[in-house]
């Protein structure tokens, strides 16, 4: 009974929906979506960033890059890739962690056993922490 009732109500709602779609002109809702969730740090990735993303999040925090290049601001280099590059929605509140310092990303990346492009990662993390 509960299921029959639920399906009947859904069928009625479907009829209303189809009628409304015929009578109103659709408008774009993407901007609304992104605007609504911007305060929660939920944003779209750029297509290029998306393509590279599986490589950007490969870090296993082995620490070898730290031996090659040290810190970015107060933060050890592997932590940039393993801890900050996790698309934390609230990363904008952690900008003080990486202020200053410009380690040798090339040396760091060449030491990485899983091929994390640390320069790219640092750039994205900087952008995310900038809000």
């Amino acid at each position: 009974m509960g299921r029959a009732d639920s399906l009947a109500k859904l069928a009625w709602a479907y009829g209303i929906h189809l009628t409304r779609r015929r009578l109103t002109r659709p408008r774009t809702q993407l901007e609304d979506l992104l605007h609504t969730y911007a305060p929660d740090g939920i944003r779209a990735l750029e297509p290029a960033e998306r393509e590279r993303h599986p490589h950007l999040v490969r870090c296993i925090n082995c620490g070898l890059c730290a031996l090659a290049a040290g810190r970015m601001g107060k933060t050890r280099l592997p932590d940039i890739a393993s801890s900050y590059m996790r698309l934390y929605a609230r990363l904008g509140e952690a900008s003080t962690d990486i202020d200053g310092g410009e380690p040798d990303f090339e040396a760091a990346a060449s030491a990485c056993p899983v091929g994390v492009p640390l320069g790219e990662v640092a750039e994205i993390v900087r952008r995310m922490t900038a809000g």
Partner: protein
Amino acid sequence: MASVFPGRTPIIRGVSAPSAHDVCVIGGGVTGAGIARDLSLRGLSVLLLEKGDWGGGTSGASSWMIHGGPRYLEFDWETTRLSTQDAGHIVTIARNLVYRVVFIIPVLPHDRNNIERMETAMEVYDRFQPLKKAHPHRRLTADEARQAEPGLSPDVIGAVTMEEWGVDPHRLVYANVEDAVAHGARALNHTKVIDLIRDGGKVIGVRYRASDRSISEARARVVVNATGPWSPEVSGMAGVPVRLRPAKGIHIVYPHRISNFSISAESIDGRDLLMVSHAGFTLLGTTDDDFYGDLDSVDVLEDEVDYLLQAFERVFPSIREYRPARTTAGVRPTLYKWRRYEDELSREYEVIDHAAQGVEGFVTIAGGKLSMYRKMAEETSDAVCRKLGHQSRSTTATTPLPGNESDMESPSELARRCGIPALAAIKLQSRHGCRAEKVLDDARGGRLVCRCEPITEAELAYAARSEQVRSLADAFRRVSLTAGPCAGAACVMRAGEVIGGELGWSASQRFDSVREFVRGSWLGRAPVLGSAGWAQEELAQGAMRGLELNGAR
């Protein structure tokens, strides 16, 4: 009526003399913890017993969501309404533990539901969304959907969005336990009920075995069975049946966000699957299969992993390029129903007073889901209070959980004052809310033990000292130790030292605890090790040489 056992009992381990309580709650999942909290807030003396760790069973193996369940609109709108309403209460009392999760629900050609049907469902769901402080849905064209998430398949013909709340179920369970204890309850984890004490047709208490193997008894006027899928086993001790249809669900865990948006996908058999973007990781699941095996040993099969990946590859083609860290497996305590596919079963719950079956003093709460835990706990507590003649109303819908008594300060300010990274402060606040600074009140200060999460040594020591952490696996649940990309390779030895130091472990006990943890973790990692996973495993084995992990290989 006032409690007949007015004295408050502190947490004591290894007690052998019988203790006496108004209520004994068996099961330290979210429902049992919620019941203990509810009854304690009503002024009753409560004993809460959990055979493993808090939230270590079904609660922890969930999708980590407080959701209204639009799926149930096909079956029972009332379940959706109640679930959404209770989600609103939970979001209010546990602000530090929740965060918004926004789904893109893409529609592909030949999907079970076309875009108009999907939007209809979301329009109906929008009526319930304000109950849980969520925004209404949006409809996206194919191009817009791919702008929001460029990883979506080019075959997508449109999408709708839906908002839910994410939550850390382990912390949610522990927050309930903590508040219950703060209001006088006694709560023991790693303590297994081995028998119910009966007097004729009445259950008058429990006999339990503590982690040190000592056997104790506790008397209670009412015993509550809140053991989820283990309910039939516990009710069997009282000689009454509870019929469930247990269903196994697994998730694949990625140690980072794959997307800022969560994504749904249709499986090969037409089921709705979810890739859920949580704070710093992604859960991909879930399966829903009748389960007949050993509830204490639920393995993940590679076939189940492939089933999930196959579905997501269709909407998110690059999914196999990501390296999963582990899997989770749990069993839902679904109410019994014959001749229905698993996915068609409702998540209804039932409070069973076994007096109707001739057993007084024994109540079971069966079925339900995480999103409705508070309401389930309230109704069970109401039933208990009726039996006890105790006149008191539940206040759990409005009383904040620990850490939510006041607004949190800015994490950067907390970080500056305590000398920890701002990211560590964010994570600390997400677990402890406005009580975060208290956790750092330790000589170790802000030294990091787990860098991926990140977790300070002070917080880990606090968890061992004040949050009933008795093993590294408990620390995983309480503070997310080893939940990051290194899967413990970089931190587990040091973590064993910190916890062992607090609990007085010898050197060999510390070593054994690490070995036990790594072996246990292996069971969850093995089903998802691709080539990158194996490479990491080799590295981890090297880092942990001397642990004699051959059993794990």
